[in-house]
């Protein structure tokens, strides 16, 4: 396991306002966060509270309006587009509510493509993650030929194939029935224990949030309270 005392993600007075013409929509207000390496954190809150926006900013998919973000000690403000993409490529994995698999290629190719973007071709690694998510026998299927639970497993395999330092999941069980949701959350726990990666789970579900070590509650773009839990 990694050293849990080391801060991996830190934000200082993070704010985000969306602008469309003259219309300004503030979404995040003074977010101050500390997430330690190897921690499993759930960010929980009602729809529209800004938790997905927070994840996109932490994942360098979106820039903050003000405030600072430190990822692995690096100030995100100093990163250009290319450096940001590189950090995302090497250190971060994303899992989305709607899976976001490429429909035109097979499950295997979806994972291999992610590796090609990293300019790597590690067939063994791909087979290993397919096995970890129990999808080896569906490797040649296209996403449209898989059930939604299976699609999410492939999406998870794609997100962890490069063993990122941080795995970010945005409502990963939002589109699943309770049985599949339970399996996926179990899979997240298993991955967390096996790989020891830092995980950020964005959810509005109390049940899903219970999978995490710590739950951060958000409301109206602000962090309301921090709750520490211990998952055994």
């Amino acid at each position, binding site marked *: 396991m990694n050293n849990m005392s080391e801060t991996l993600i830190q934000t200082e007075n993070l704010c985000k306002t969306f602008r469309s013409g003259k219309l300004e929509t503030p979404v995040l207000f003074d977010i101050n966060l500390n997430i330690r390496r190897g921690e499993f954190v759930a960010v929980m809150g009602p729809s529209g509270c800004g938790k997905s926006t927070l994840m996109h900013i932490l994942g360098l998919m979106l820039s903050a309006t003000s405030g600072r973000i430190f990822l692995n000690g690096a100030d995100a403000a100093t990163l250009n587009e290319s450096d940001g993409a590189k950090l995302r490529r090497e250190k971060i994995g994303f899992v989305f509510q709607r899976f976001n698999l490429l*429909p035109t290629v097979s499950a295997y190719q979806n994972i291999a*493509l992610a590796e090609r973007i990293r300019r790597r071709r590690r067939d063994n690694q791909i087979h290993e993650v397919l096995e970890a998510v129990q999808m080896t026998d569906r490797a040649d299927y296209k996403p449209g030929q898989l059930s939604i639970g299976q699609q999410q497993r492939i999406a998870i395999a794609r997100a962890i194939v490069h063993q990122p330092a941080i795995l970010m999941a945005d409502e990963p069980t939002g589109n699943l029935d309770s049985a599949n949701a339970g399996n996926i959350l179990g899979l997240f726990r298993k991955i967390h224990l096996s790989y020891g990666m830092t995980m950020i789970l964005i959810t509005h579900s109390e049940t899903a949030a219970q999978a995490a070590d710590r739950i951060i509650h958000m409301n109206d773009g602000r962090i309301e309270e921090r709750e520490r839990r211990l998952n055994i």
Partner: protein
Amino acid sequence: MLRLAWANLIHRKVRTALSVLAVAIAITLLLILVGLSHGTLNDVSNRMQSVEAEIIVRDTNFDLGTLSGGKLWEKEIPRFQNLKIDNRPAIQRVMPVFLGRLKLAGQSQNVFGVRPDDFQFFAGARKIVEGNIYEDVDSPNVILEQQEKQNNLDDNTLPVMSLLIDQKLAAAADMKVGDTTYYGDLPAQIVGIVETGVAGRVFAPINMLRAANGIAAATCHMFFVKANPEFNTDQLQTLCEKIEQAAKRDATLVANYGQIIKANFKTLIIFVNLVSVIALVICFLFILVTVYTSVLERSKEMAILQSLGAGRKLILSQTIHESLLICSAGTLLGIAFTFAARYFIETARPLMTVEIRLSWLLGAVVVGIVGGIFSALYPAYVAWHHDPVEALSFE
């Protein structure tokens, strides 16, 4: 990345096929238009340059491109035929050519009226494959007087004019030795077939051709001048200048005929080039719209790639790859279409020449690649500026 671009194209088979077809048609149009116009001009030029002569003398008003205009007189020949350069006789032979027109194989053909003795210089290495060279009368008057007599006697047995045609025309007109046709009111018979490549597709005895045109005088349209074979280009150029001074006519090197004819048909070539460019622009606009639509459709896919760590450069290259694949496939198909089109054109119209040069094919490939890149620029710009977070939030 190429694999993903390929998978995207395969995923949208009909649209991809239509795009490839659009490029293929544009490339075919480009190559056929250029090949047909240049092929025809080069064919005429090569045939004219096959004459074993170095200089063409003509009236200032005679147009070498259309082979029409002012005439010459045979009696002008002595003005220059004894010219000397560096104290050496400059001219070996002067060959008058009288031009006529005859409709054969569905189109008007230039008839080269030349003396039987001169024909060997027009044939060069090409042989008469069937029949023989024609004979001529001493003067057009022989025919004209005979015609006059027969008209008065109401006699239908008119004198017959002999013709030599080339193999290509014989095949196109489905004619053989012994077949007859008419030159105006005068019956004409094929007496020989010569290998393709001679200056004219139809040759006739010069005096008979004059008579067939109702001309009794020894006029002609051009003199082909066979110069001293030891002369170099500079001496030939000097000879041209001396002929012009002596004969008060225009003299041109046969070797320059290609340039002259191309200058003559400059407007046609500009028109052909313009049509080709317009065809290409329309084609590449089509590709632009196709790739642009594809980019709009796949903004989510691009956002996924970005979430996986793809930079904007990779997104850009993905868009360009796709466009390049369409254009490359279209170009190759277009080249195949071009060969097929040439086969059909030359089969249906044997007298047409579609020239296909390797340099033009390579040019078409370059045009395809450059066009593919240009067509992808705007869609790539759109892809570059799209918001991945917004795209990922769409269903």
